[in-house]
């Protein structure tokens, strides 16, 4: 290392400029701290902004447009088949990402957050080495580790063929493959499958378990699965990938399922079997930070690690690996670090799958309730009784609210249907605020909107929903 080393000083250094890291850095700066934000990627915003939430939603929007033009035919509106210009799509998606990343950089500047480019490696509990970029070191009072996660790719899939992709590769949209295999029936695989299917690929999903989206209640998944079965070539459950072979004409994939073993050929394979926290190579062993067997940094409710100077937030700090969880943790970490009585005491972290229809839930699920042996009451409002859903031609949706039978407190909300991702916000607020059925039912919801389904779910609990007749219990 050079003799005249470039050493910066910060009261708080944040490692990683994703949605958790930049939220933390900005709050710390707003509270008058001298903050450095270290990022080793060229663009700010982390996976979410560059290789996750944002580009995938841009592409999903196109998928939705394509599907809607097709479905409008039944309503008497016909469009010609879309012309798909992949290069322009890539460019547009890039513009969206660049604009947001530029916005983060601008916010850094206006808040006086010192941006340090390069890879951060702990040398001690008080000093970081910066490799590459702004080579040098950062000395700090407190560090917040927000290094995020990366796609997990089991070694068997690592066959050095660019046609076998992870989510990052799939979002690059190098081409529209004729046949695409999605390995893993989680939300990333289903979202990307939806995009490629709308763009014209024949999509097959394989899933080891006997259902897709296993974190969600089955009644929420059913309408989605039914629709995907129409859009996808196949959804193969309880099926395992046993071999991958590079061939000139494609990738030969050996599958083993309930019907035995078979080999199918695909033009591309997307591996979306989960994500791994980025805790390696950070020099954490030079600090007091403890990392658990799964590679997550151990933190308490104030986001403190075992090292009194170091805090951790977001994907590195544990499941669920969601941007909005990271942002909240970032704010908690900064406030707690400044001695404020903050804690990550949230009851509900909303989960949204941006497929078509969308699936969203928050708080307690029915699966969890039954696993805990907890007695709950569930009110389900099918969207067939919603005027708004009918006008959209999308009545497959369902809104359900899970209540505590004694207090009628809203414990969880689950929604499947168009716009579920937006609708879940009300449910999350209801759970977090400890609302009861009467609060949801007694709040006026605009007509005609899908949000009325939440109000009517609450009324259903008392057997008095306006648009759905149910016999009262007992």
């Amino acid at each position, binding site marked *: 290392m050079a003799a005249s080393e470039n050493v910066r000083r910060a009261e708080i250094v944040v490692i990683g400029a994703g949605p958790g890291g930049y939220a933390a850095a900005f709050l710390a700066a707003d509270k008058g701290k001298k903050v450095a934000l270290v990022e080793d990627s060229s663009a700010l915003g982390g996976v979410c902004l560059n290789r996750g939430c944002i580009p995938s939603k841009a592409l999903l929007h196109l998928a939705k447009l394509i599907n809607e033009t097709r479905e409008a035919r039944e309503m008497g509106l016909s469009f010609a088949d879309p012309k798909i210009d992949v290069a322009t799509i890539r460019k547009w998606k890039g513009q969206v990402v660049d604009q947001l990343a530029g916005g983060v950089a601008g916010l850094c500047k206006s808040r006086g957050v010192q941006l340090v480019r390069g890879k951060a490696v702990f040398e001690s509990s008080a000093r970081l080495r910066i490799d590459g970029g702004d080579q040098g070191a950062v000395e700090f009072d407190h560090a917040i580790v927000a290094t995020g996660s990366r796609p997990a790719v089991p070694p068997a899939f690592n066959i050095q063929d660019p046609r076998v992709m992870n989510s990052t590769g799939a979002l690059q949209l190098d081409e529209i493959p004729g046949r695409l295999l999605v390995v893993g029936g989680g939300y990333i695989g289903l979202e990307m499958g939806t995009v490629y299917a709308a763009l014209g690929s024949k999509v097959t999903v394989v899933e080891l378990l006997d259902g897709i989206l296993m974190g969600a209640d089955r009644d929420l998944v059913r309408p989605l699965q039914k629709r995907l079965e129409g859009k996808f070539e196949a959804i193969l459950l309880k099926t395992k990938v046993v071999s991958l072979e590079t061939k000139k004409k494609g990738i030969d994939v050996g599958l083993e399922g309930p019907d035995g073993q078979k080999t199918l050929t695909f033009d591309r394979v997307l591996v979306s079997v989960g994500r791994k926290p980025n805790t390696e190579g950070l020099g954490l062993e030079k600090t007091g930070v403890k990392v658990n067997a799964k590679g997550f940094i151990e933190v308490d409710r104030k986001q403190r690690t075992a090292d009194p100077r170091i805090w951790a937030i977001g994907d590195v700090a544990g499941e669920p690996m969601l941007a909005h969880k990271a942002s909240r943790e970032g704010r908690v970490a900064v406030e707690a670090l400044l001695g404020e*009585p903050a804690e990550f005491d949230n009851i509900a972290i909303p989960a949204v799958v941006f497929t078509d229809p969308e699936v969203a839930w928050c708080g307690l699920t029915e699966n969890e309730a039954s696993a805990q042996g907890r007695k709950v009451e569930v009110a389900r409002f099918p969207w067939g009784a919603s005027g708004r859903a009918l006008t959209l031609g999308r009545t497959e949706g369902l809104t359900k609210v899970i209540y505590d039978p004694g207090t009628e*407190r809203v414990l969880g909300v689950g929604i499947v249907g168009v716009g579920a991702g937006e609708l879940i916000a009300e449910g999350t607020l209801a759970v977090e605020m*400890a*609302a*009861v059925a009467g609060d949801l039912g007694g709040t006026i919801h605009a007509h005609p909107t899908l949000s009325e389904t939440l109000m009517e779910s609450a009324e259903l609990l008392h057997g008095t929903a306006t648009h759905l007749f149910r016999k009262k219990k007992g």
Partner: protein
Amino acid sequence: MATRITLPQLGEGIEAGDIVNVLVSAGDVVRKDQALAEIETDKAVVEFPSPDDGRITKVSVKAGDHVKVGALLFELESGAEKREPTESVREGERAAKNPSASVAADRERAGSVAVGAGRSAQGPPPPVAAGGTSEVVRLPQLGEGIEGGDVLNVLVKAGDAISKDQSIAEVETDKAVVEVPSPVSGRVAELLIKAGDHIKVGADLMCVDIAAASGTAPEAPMAAPPGPIPAAAATEKPAAVPGPPRAPGGPQPPAADGRQVPAGPATRRLARELGVDLTRVRGSATGGRITIDDVKAFVRSGGMAAAAGGGAGHVPAAQPLPDFSQWGPIERKPVSSLRRKIADQMAVAWSAPMVTHFDEADITELEAFRKQFAPRVKEAGGALTMTTIAIKAVVEGLKEFPQLNSSFDAARGEMIVKGYYHISVAVDTPAGLIVPVVRDADKKSLRELAIELNRLAQRARDRKVSVEELQGGTFTISNLGGIGGTGFTPLLNPPQVGILGLARGSLRAVWRDGRFEPRLIMPLSVTYDHRVIDGADGARFTRRVARAFEEFAGALLDV
């Protein structure tokens, strides 16, 4: 307008008295200095004179009452037009003149309050004089173990219209500055406090005129409507602390199954700020949801004190003091809430059977080390003081003698040994002794401790330490070496069982290796709770800490 007549200071050290006789009744016209009541104190029976000419509108005491200084005795309408009292007032007058009859009458009327009230419980309430009636607002419970505080600011002035729950004063307790809300709506008739006053829970803060209305409502509504309260409602004795509408203060059993407490994020955060255990707060909203108001009401109603469960030891009441002025001039100065808290805590500490053990440490090498590295630590924002080093030394000792890092649960006959090392450090501040806590001292480097302690001490001096930062200590260090002294006997900081005191080091001729050498010797003392720590262990621990100082520089080689 009515003037409130309260019990004045009757003499040095006299805080209360017994009403022997009430000499007037409601409706009576009185002259200035006319005796209104006879009051017996522990020194004498005194006649209590009227401060002004006027007409008595209300009698708030009866013979046999024990009243404290500041308590409301009468209300007097000064310069009032002389008019015949109404029939019902006459009845009140009879009742007041004959206390025992009044009590009997009370029973007949099924508990309604008749004494001194210008109103019959049987007949319709009489029209009330223009100007309405007044209610005394008193200082409610502010929190766990808080008996009073200093008035920082009075937020209203006489003549102001105030509404229920409006903040009327800021009171600084030893824990935080608390805003005191008004329990009623009305107009401030008279302020009874000013900034700088030290007031106790239950003290009169102000007199609020509750605006006159139709006078038809016979019952006092529990929840004050946004508008004025009907006048008749307030003719009864002023309530000590008007209850919130749904009385949320009562503790309820904590959720046994660990389910989430029904409270929103902002409420949960406030609870953490105030140190309130939400499982003990009863929610007033639908489904038992706890609102921010519920948390505040819980604190006000003394729920925290109930929650704490009176674990503190018995503190005997102070003996009455003689009248010092008989021997020369004196000045009575109020003491701060902090000072009162310190006094209480020290009294509790004194009740433990404790022993102080003395030792000395040769800190010649250590002081050289300290001086060498102090500038570097200073650069990092810390101060490498003997106290910082003492934290390290104490942690070493506590690791070997965990019984010093414990608390004694006498009720259960158990010793609670802590698996963490949170060191309390006594800080001398302009306001008085404050003891913030350095958490997890065993996990921090000397530099980190120096920085943290420096900041904590500064925050303590600025009175900015949070309640959280004052809690959880397992052992205390008190360093008076900077001031001087050859040794002292520090008092325990209960429920801790040990405290280290450092006195000033001095150069002494010490016989070493066959000759005298100048060595820097620091006296130190450890006070320990003899209930759980035997003398030999106390001595061993003290020696161990002394050795940690002596071998400090050498020990660093192994870290």
